């Protein structure tokens, strides 16, 4: 994907396994083509190319070998989805469509993941545990604002563009209908990752009729606010879109349960988390920490953008190779196990409550005196496939809004019309323990005893 000849060509093309041919430029629409050209230049910056070395699903390929797709491929897909959503908005709004705002939103969609680190959520959690209180959203905003190739491309187009995108990346709520493209139930990110993760993992559920869904999307307003009711712009689905919205929410729910929360993937994540925490603790004062990028970042009091951008999945795997020869037996064991895929085994405690109280709490207490549990790692997570939001504030814009009848004055929560979604609003809790295979029977026995 060279840019040297971009001025002599009308468009650039990428083949994508989900969306087919993604074309940058050549639409015949001057404003959109110009945005596409900026996007193409952004793709070719070193900060964006780093995403090529970060897998979208982290350790999921340990379970689903096909799931090796990168955050770069996903980001390009998100840009494509954002354009399709922008087309829907443009069509519905007609002459009121704001092309400048569209440009900011499309480029923000492309850049939304640029601040992700390796094994994103594990790495962030370890960072927070050792005092680095910064998430990928903060890094993304800084990459857009700071001295980077991405900032230069954006400033070359317009001085204000980096600031406009930075704000959008930081916003926790969609400010207008264009904001819904990057942050809502049907935002471009979710639409792409559901389709992409499904295909790349090879799971045979979760089909979404994307064309139908987009065709049923409408632009409207919904009344929010208890004290001072006011109308807020929103995307909603018309009467023929209720079923596809159910498919969409079901697909997400099943991906969470069967892919993202998979016990083996979570075991590897817990092991890496434990390993990195120990590295930060043990290596803080050693000269070694200054020469190896992962340790250098974790022990740094004030990590810089440069030290962060030096990290990707490949630096973590390279570090694991070094750590496997480390004199600390725990670090060495975990690194070697991850490299050889000799992962800890899972005891799924479930969420059963007993007369003596919560089973997981009692199980953990009982493990306190057990030698076999000395290296035990725990997992306690809650997943809510469809979260409740009220209409009291702007969080209402995170609902899936539908009009089940054309003559309804305004859209309502899909919960009101769908029994399927009623099931999806229930919290699902995951409570597990992970230990080396040799210790698994001891843990199972303990679990039986406390049941």
């Amino acid at each position, binding site marked *: 994907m060279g840019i040297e000849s971009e001025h002599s060509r009308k468009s650039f093309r990428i083949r994508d396994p989900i969306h087919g041919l993604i074309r940058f430029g050549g639409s015949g629409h001057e404003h959109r083509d110009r945005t596409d050209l900026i996007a193409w230049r952004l793709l070719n910056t070193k900060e964006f190319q780093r995403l090529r070395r970060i897998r979208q699903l982290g350790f999921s390929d340990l379970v689903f070998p096909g799931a090796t797709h990168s955050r770069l491929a996903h980001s390009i897909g998100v840009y494509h989805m954002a354009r399709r959503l922008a087309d829907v908005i443009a069509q519905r709004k007609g002459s009121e469509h704001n092309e400048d705002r569209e440009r900011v939103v499309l480029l923000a969609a492309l850049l939304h993941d640029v601040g992700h680190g390796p094994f994103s959520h594990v790495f962030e959690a370890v960072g927070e545990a050792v005092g680095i209180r910064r*998430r990928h959203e903060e890094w993304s905003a800084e990459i857009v604002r700071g001295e980077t190739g991405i900032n230069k491309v954006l400033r070359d187009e317009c001085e204000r563009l980096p600031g406009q995108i930075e704000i959008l990346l930081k*916003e*926790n*709520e969609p*400010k207008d209908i264009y904001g819904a493209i990057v942050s809502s139930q049907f935002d471009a990110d979710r639409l792409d990752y559901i389709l992409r993760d499904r295909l790349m993992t090879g799971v045979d559920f979760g089909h979404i009729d994307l064309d139908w869904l987009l065709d049923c999307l409408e632009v409207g307003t919904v009344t929010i606010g208890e004290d001072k009711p006011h109308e807020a712009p929103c995307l909603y689905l018309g009467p023929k879109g209720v079923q596809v919205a159910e498919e969409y929410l079901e697909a997400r729910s099943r991906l969470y349960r069967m892919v993202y929360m998979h016990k083996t993937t979570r075991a590897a994540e817990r092991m890496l988390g434990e390993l990195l925490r120990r590295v930060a603790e043990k290596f803080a004062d050693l000269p070694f920490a200054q020469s190896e990028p992962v340790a250098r970042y974790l022990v740094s009091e004030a990590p810089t953008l440069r030290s962060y951008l030096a990290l990707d999945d490949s630096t973590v795997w390279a570090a694991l190779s070094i750590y496997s020869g480390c004199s600390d037996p725990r670090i060495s064991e975990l690194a070697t196990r991850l490299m050889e895929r000799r992962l800890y085994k899972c005891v799924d405690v479930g969420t059963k409550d007993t007369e003596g*109280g919560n*089973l997981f709490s009692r199980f953990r207490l009982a493990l306190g005196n057990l030698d076999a549990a000395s290296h035990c790692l725990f997992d306690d997570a809650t997943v809510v496939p469809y979260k409740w939001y*009220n209409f009291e504030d702007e*969080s209402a814009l995170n609902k899936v809004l539908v009009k089940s009848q054309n003559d309804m004055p305004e859209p309502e*929560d899909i919960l009101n019309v769908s029994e399927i979604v009623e099931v999806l609003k229930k919290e699902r809790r995951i409570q597990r323990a992970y230990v080396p295979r040799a210790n698994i029977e001891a843990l199972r026995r303990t679990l039986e005893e406390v049941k």
Partner: protein
Amino acid sequence: MMNAEEVAVGLIVLNGGKLVGRTRIQKQAYLLHRCGGNFGLQFTYHRYGPYCFELVGGLNDARAEGRIEVEEEIGRHGVAYAIFRSGERAGIPQCLGDLEADGARNLLNKMKGISDIVLELAATIVFLRDEWDYFGKDRIDPEEETRKRKPLKSTDERISAARKLLQELGLNSVPANA
């Protein structure tokens, strides 16, 4: 340091045995933690301000052990929300972290009648000011940063109410560059 279950139960009991909404319990926990509770829980930046995953686990554990009851009610527009009530086995807390029970109750009384959104804004301002590491912290005050991140919720009226609450709680919002 206090475990999350004790914080969860204590908050509900000291609220008079009833607390409505998951957001509210999270924000109250954070503000009380900062008012001297020092719960030892880890709060992180979340879409709705500071959020503690351990507290969610604490609520689940307390429910499983019969120390609290959780009801889901249907509100306006048919949307469910959670009502937390203290259960038979809740007990009466003598303290909440490092706060005496009476002191914690007084602080919670100051939050009565304050909307969830104002609590969220107040908690976010303090969190951004003192804990979260955002770029530009040296030149952008936390109130301005909160407005940026929550442009629709941050009306002048609500920000002003959040500021007033922080003053009453002794957590005055001081711009980082002041």
